[in-house]
């Protein structure tokens, strides 16, 4: 087997953001299911949270290539 430990490190780094993104969209779906008219209010909040959580995973990806 060949390769670098960076890929393993990135895999580990993606666990946290993965769970975070899952929680955000779970909350968003629940909110819309309970109150469909709140969709337009919740959508930017959900995508903002998604973007912030995802940024962590992307830092990991960039570092996996840079280091």
């Amino acid at each position, binding site marked *: 087997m060949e390769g670098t430990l960076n890929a393993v490190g990135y895999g580990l780094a993606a666990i946290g953001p993965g769970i975070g993104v899952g929680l955000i969209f779970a909350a968003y779906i629940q909110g819309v299911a309970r109150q469909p008219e709140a969709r*337009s209010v919740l*959508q*930017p909040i959900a*995508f*903002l949270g*998604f*973007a*912030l959580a*995802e*940024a962590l995973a*992307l*830092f990991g*990806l*960039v570092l996996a*290539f840079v280091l």
Partner: protein
Amino acid sequence: MSLVVLAEEGEGYNPPGSGDFKLPPIIENLEWFTKPYLMALISVVILVAFFYFAARKPKMVPSRLQFAGEGIYGFVRRDLARDIIGSAEFMKFLPLIFSLFIFIALNNVFGIIPFIQFPTMSLIGFPIALTLIVWIVYNWVGIRRQGPIGYFKNMMFPPGVPSWVYILLAPLELVSTVFVRPLTLSLRLFANMFAGHLLLIVFILGGEYMLLEGEGIVKVLSIGAFAMGIVMTFFELLVQVLQAYIFALLTALYIAGAMSEEH
């Protein structure tokens, strides 16, 4: 492409990496004039032409082109600018947000259009340039609106917090607003496009290698790699438009945050 060359030279499988993003110049002796540079120029021409013809003769019953143009414009105006910045002042910033959205969206979608197939934003320079514009605009708006002292005071010392927390909160807020925001804004766009393009070339070039160099069952299994590549192409379309949306959304949020007195 590099793989085909390598296969002809009889070398082993060379996994795609960050080297695949360094493209040669189109014209010799013009180092900076590469394919992504040309694509960014073409995208501007396409967008100007599209929206010029879509808005040239507005009719009560819109033509298909006018309907498409108005649909995109209406979406950005309604869902991004007006809902976030507020109906009083969003018109001042709508040109910036709308231009950012369509420019990033088209340049990202270039990543899956056949024969172009390279997302411009997967080179870090393009997101940095766009982020620099956003960074200057929202800081300038904040300083204009609240004064240079008021802007940093409202940023670093939000009201309603016990005073000893400010020791921790003030530097964190400063670093977050001035440094981390532009860093994450540009890196998010860059890394999404970089990772997406890498994902596609891993599947497609891997499948190509299996088909050309593999023996027996490996040749058949290359169908799986190509199928996965096609599925991922459609997934990329979603990610590309979503990233343009997020970039425009965050721009609107930062501007709205700089305009309001407290967070």
